[in-house]
């Protein structure tokens, strides 16, 4: 695809109205409009990163329009001479907007807006098709809803933004980490002459700078005032070479002659500082002695021999010794830290400066971080404390604040009594005006009365007893007795035939209605909503019928009938509750929509 498109176009500030003829130049980063009339002030140079979205007119439209919308809502309309011109521009705009990192912005932000004239970039369209082809479930859904017209294309994809975002072209490029090689500056010696060659690439330089701050500092100091870049690296290579010969004495001798070379040969002060700082941050309670059993620990260089370091060295050579494990650790730290700077590696000086800045920033941050120090101190005191001498530490809990539950139970009690239908005498509190003494007195009196006279004969009236017995057994004789006799006999059989048939009829009709009712949810179309309203009306007519039927049956059967009717009523109630909730929700939503526009 072309990186740059130049087309003739008319610029308009609105879709209608006259335009200014000119030339539109589109690149991947920006679009530039130059009017034909050089005196006209209408000229643009706009970056695509400020462009929020774009639209274009349909193929069937009279004008070939392209509309670019800026972040601030400003619109740029371009009318092209023909559609192919417009489409070429549209394509590059689509890519440019996608590249500017504003993924998904090609789709206008309001998904509910009329989307018919939305035009997607070819890439986006292809991606969607690919997704559909890969996922048969998605394809089926798409077929069911979009092609049937239940959902529009945009609505369908709006819920699947995640899938779209996975589009590989929009993902930021993965950054390459540092190489895990050490000492990539292996000297190449041809074996015949005394020449030794070192190869430096920008990648290697970056690594050297990151691992050896002293070299970096020296570079910033010496180049280009004191020596050229080439001289600098030659010196560095010389130092490296001396190291690789493992001749500490020779290195010391050379360093004495050349102070610049000494920088490379001596131990890195900055590194040493950093190491000291790191050691300070080590948990003071770390028990180094615990590891002493591990064999390699007390061998010099941890058992990795690098040269004849076991030789006894005179103290003046000490700074020129370098331990392999130091290098190894430093290298590991740098690699793990990853690429901390974000500059092109071409320019050595920029790299060095950027690294230095970064390090200084880190240092400053660390120094200013008082809380870290405080935490360290706290930790030390906590670990070193003697438990016996400490005050008991209370767990950090919030005290429970629980209200007296009594007033709740009082109200619960009142409610329970209300529910039991205990009106009248039971509803109000029983009055008791007697004093404690009188109350107990009367009780004692009653007891002594019985004690003295014994049980009165007769204890109760036989009529009363018969009444009670009848009252207690009435229920049994009416329903239970009959029910128990024949296990095949159901409650329905005991009802009059008319009532029975009516009940069965109601049951089937209610079931039919409910089946249709529930299957219409969620209401997605106008058709469904009218259907539901129709069903609801039909159902509401059943209520009085049921009530009527209940009243028509004899009193002793009424309880049975109401037991049978209750589940019907419950099912209907549930349907109505759902209908009402849905209507409310709908009205809320439509209200929002009105406000939204």
């Amino acid at each position: 695809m072309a990186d740059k498109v130049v087309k003739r176009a008319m610029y308009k500030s609105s879709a209608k109205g006259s335009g200014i003829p000119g030339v539109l130049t589109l690149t991947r980063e920006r679009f530039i409009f130059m009017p034909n009339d050089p005196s006209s002030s209408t000229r643009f140079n706009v970056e695509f990163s400020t462009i929020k979205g774009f639209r274009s007119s349909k193929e069937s439209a009279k004008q070939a329009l392209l509309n670019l919308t800026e972040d601030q809502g400003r619109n740029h309309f371009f009318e092209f001479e023909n559609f192919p011109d417009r489409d070429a521009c549209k394509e590059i705009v689509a890519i440019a907007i996608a590249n500017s990192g504003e993924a998904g912005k090609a789709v206008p932000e309001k998904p509910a807006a009329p989307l018919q004239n939305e035009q997607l970039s070819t890439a986006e369209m292809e991606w969607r098709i690919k997704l559909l082809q890969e996922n048969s479930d998605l394809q089926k859904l798409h077929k069911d809803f979009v092609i049937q017209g239940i959902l529009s294309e945009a609505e369908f994809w709006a819920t699947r933004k995640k899938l779209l975002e996975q589009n590989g072209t929009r993902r930021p490029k993965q950054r390459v980490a540092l190489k895990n090689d050490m000492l990539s500056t292996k000297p190449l010696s041809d074996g015949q002459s005394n020449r030794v060659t070192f190869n430096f690439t920008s990648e290697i330089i970056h690594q050297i700078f990151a691992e050896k701050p002293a070299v970096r500092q020296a570079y910033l100091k010496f180049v280009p005032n004191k020596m050229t870049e080439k001289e600098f690296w030659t010196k560095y290579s010389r130092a490296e070479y001396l190291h690789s010969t493992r001749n500490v004495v020779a290195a010391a001798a050379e360093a004495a002659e050349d102070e610049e070379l000494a920088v490379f040969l001596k131990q890195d002060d900055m590194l040493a500082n950093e190491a000291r700082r790191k050691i300070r941050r080590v948990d003071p309670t770390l028990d180094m002695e615990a590891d002493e059993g591990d064999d390699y620990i007390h061998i010099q260089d941890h058992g990795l021999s690098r040269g004849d370091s076991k030789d006894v060295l005179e103290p003046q050579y000490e700074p020129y010794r370098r331990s392999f494990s130091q290098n190894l650790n430093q290298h590991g730290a740098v690699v793990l830290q990853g690429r901390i700077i974000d500059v092109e590696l071409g320019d050595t000086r920029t790299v060095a400066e950027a690294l230095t800045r970064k390090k200084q920033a880190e240092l400053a941050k660390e120094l200013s971080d008082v809380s870290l120090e405080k935490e360290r101190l706290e930790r030390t005191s906590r670990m070193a404390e003697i438990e016996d001498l400490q005050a008991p530490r209370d767990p950090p809990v919030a005290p429970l604040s629980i209200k007296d539950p009594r007033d709740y139970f009082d109200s619960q009690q009142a409610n329970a009594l209300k529910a039991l239908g205990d009106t009248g005498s039971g509803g109000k509190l029983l009055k008791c005006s007697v004093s404690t003494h009188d109350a107990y007195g009367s009780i004692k009196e009653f007891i002594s009365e019985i004690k003295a006279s014994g049980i009165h004969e007769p204890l109760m009236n036989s009529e009363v007893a018969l009444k009670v017995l009848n009252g207690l057994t009435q229920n049994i004789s009416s329903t239970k007795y009959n029910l128990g006799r024949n296990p095949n006999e159901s409650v329905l059989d005991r009802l009059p035939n008319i009532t029975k048939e009516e009940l069965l009829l109601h049951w089937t009709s209610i079931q039919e209605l409910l089946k249709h009712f529930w299957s219409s949810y969620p209401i997605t179309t106008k058709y469904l909503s009218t259907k539901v309203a129709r069903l609801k009306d039909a159902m509401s007519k059943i209520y009085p019928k049921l009530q009527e039927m209940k009243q028509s049956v004899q009193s002793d059967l009424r309880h049975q009938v109401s037991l049978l009717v209750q589940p019907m009523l419950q099912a209907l109630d549930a349907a109505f509750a759902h209908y009402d909730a849905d209507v409310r929700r709908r009205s809320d939503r439509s209200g929002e929509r009105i406000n939204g526009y």
Partner: protein
Amino acid sequence: MSPPVPSKLLTDDVSLIMVLIDTNPYFWSSIESNFTFAKFLSHVLAFLNSILLLNQLNQVVVIATGFNSCSYVFDSSISVSPRAESLLPKLEEFVENDESLSQDNGSVDGVGSSLLSGALSMALCYIQRVFRSGPLHPQPRILCLHGSPDGPGQYVAIMNSIFSAQRSMVPIDSCVIGSQHSAFLQQASYITGGVYLKPQQMEGLLQYLLTVFATDLHSRNFLQLPKPVGVDFRASCFCHKSTIDMGFICSVCLSIFCRRQKKCSTCGSVFGQTQTQQDPSSSDLKRKTPSSS
């Protein structure tokens, strides 16, 4: 403790009845009809004697439920006289003791409630002792003859007793003497599978007692006793005290609210924000329907 009986005689129709008698003096003074405590006592004594006569191994224990205390007043297994009238002196003693415990500041507000929770606990303790006496023991049940209104303060204690009875499969029968229903006893009988009865005619109390509560547990299986009425287990919300069947519950202290709260008014827990305000019929509402017979 019960005298050693030949264990083979302890058949499944031998009962141990714990009878809780309400002796709340304020309640009995408030009764307007002529059904006095004396009449009540005579009916109960006749009933107890009949039970003792039904099976010679039947055992009756009476616990007096007073206003300030409760106490065992009769145990047929250790009583000198086999007749229940022998509880009267002890009952008198108990009433006097109960009076001495009450404060001297005259009358109480309203009728007050008797110590049902204490009496239930004592009954359960006694039953536990019987359970541990050996593999064969009389079938225990508890009968509450209760008239005083429920004491809301005893709610937790009573519910604990009820669940304890349910666990040891001891039915709690209740016969409500007063004019108002007792929600506690309704729940107690419902949960433990006992019978709840509120006699309509107090003059026929003995008839009620004999018809409904005299039979042993084994025979109950073959009888049609009064059906348990539907018990409304619905709770009332803490905020408006209205009974609700769906609501919001504090996840810390289980307080109930009828609408979403930012902070629990009982324990002070602050609730997090839910993701979306869904319609109230979904997810976090718990429905508790009143059970019906």
